[in-house]
């Protein structure tokens, strides 16, 4: 059972276990945001809402927003924009000259990237992931980043179900952008189910319900084909 807290709620006496989403005052742990308490080794409050804040190591889907030599400025669905340096492209290539950056990545291209560093001034450096360029294949679904863990499910159960039953390639980035690749009908189904998960994120037994929904959808479709 989960416990919802609001800012200022007392959570625990164990100040040394205070984690993300909490603050310590007079040796006691209080909630810093409106969210759910998660007690493991650390006591955390997982926010129910709020903007995506990049952390080192996150894998995100970004949109090239601007080209400003020697950086690509990338929109990562956060209040802060990220930067990708040209040297990220240098491997096995000639040096990228001023003015030719758009030949490699142009404005509005989508990329898969890893957050290399976030400094105190919120300057965010990205590095490209192996299969980085989304090259206009598939579909992009954007959901609130707070719902990402729900779409993945406990130890990946939800995403596993989705991939199998929808017959799609699905990649979920930390910033709430989801890349789906598959046939048109499969992608329609997958995005519909993802929205369903987001809307019902706070209900129990969601994975089972999604499985049932997908199974019955398949059954209906097969019936339709028989006729």
């Amino acid at each position, binding site marked *: 059972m989960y416990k*919802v807290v*609001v*800012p*200022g*709620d007392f959570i625990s006496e164990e100040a040394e276990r205070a984690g993300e*989403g909490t*603050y310590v*005052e007079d040796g006691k742990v*209080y909630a*810093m*945001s*409106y*969210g759910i308490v998660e007690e493991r080794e650390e006591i955390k409050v997982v*926010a*129910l*809402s*709020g*903007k995506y*804040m990049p952390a080192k190591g996150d894998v995100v889907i970004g949109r090239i927003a601007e080209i400003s030599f020697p950086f690509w400025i990338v929109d990562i669905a956060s*209040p*802060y924009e990220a930067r990708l340096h040209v040297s990220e492209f240098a491997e096995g290539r000639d040096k990228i000259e001023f003015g030719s950056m758009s030949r490699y990545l142009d404005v509005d291209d989508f990329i898969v990237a890893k957050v290399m560093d976030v400094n*105190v*001034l*919120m300057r965010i450096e990205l590095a490209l992931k192996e299969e980085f360029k989304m090259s206009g294949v598939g579909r992009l679904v954007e959901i609130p980043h*707070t719902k990402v863990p729900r779409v993945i499910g406990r130890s990946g159960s939800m995403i596993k179900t989705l991939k199998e039953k929808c017959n799609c390639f699905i990649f979920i980035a930390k910033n709430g952008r989801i890349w789906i690749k598959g046939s048109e009908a499969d992608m329609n189904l997958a995005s519909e189910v993802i929205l369903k998960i987001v809307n*019902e994120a*706070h*209900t*129990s037994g969601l994975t089972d*319900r999604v499985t049932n929904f997908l199974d019955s959808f398949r059954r209906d479709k097969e019936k339709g084909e028989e006729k």
Partner: protein
Amino acid sequence: MKEGTERKLIIDGKRLDGRGFEELRPIKIEIGVLKRADGSCYLEVGDNKVIAAVYGPREMHPRHAQDAKMAVIKYRYNMAPFSVDDRKRPGPDRRSVEISKVSREAFDPVIMKEYYPKMAIEVYVEMLQSDAGTRTAGINAASVALADAGIPMTDLVSSIAVGKIDGEVVLDLTGVEDNNGEADMPIAMIARTNTITALQMDGHLTKEEFKRGLKLAMGACHQIYELQRAALIERYSKSEGREEKKRD
């Protein structure tokens, strides 16, 4: 109000709307009423109807007003032209600019601004209908909307006014009481720590009356805090209930 003029505000130990001296007007809180805002809250206190919207953290404009170390809070208190009996001329005026500033400062100690350098956290508070005590209603609504937007805060802020009518210190003045009373004192505070984050006074109170009023208001802020908290917690459990029903 001078003695012997106009009307009495207290009859048989009750106020004109039938309340006791230490009684609040009924409060109703609804969360997440605006789809496109990051956080929102609709709040009613008696005949006051307020809607608060929070946007951000998002880029601060104008850029020269950015703070490299922390977020900037923007707070706009605005009265709709139709919110009062005589049409109010639209747009900011001396009064609303002052209220915006005071309300913004009421949130200064609770919002953890240093988490969002260079950004702006924007709070828009619109009075749809007003009957005295709109700034306190606005602060209560904004507080819930900020939590709904996921803004990190140390606490919620709760706010209420006390005043003096017919020589008595009473809680939560209505429009009639405010216009014909002797004093009005809105306060905002953090209920958990009893920290006052805003206090204004219009009119005259003796030292004893002030102390009594403050005590009254602080007690009322705890009540309001419980309502704000309950609304936030309930919203979450309710969404579960609704889904459960849909399934059957």
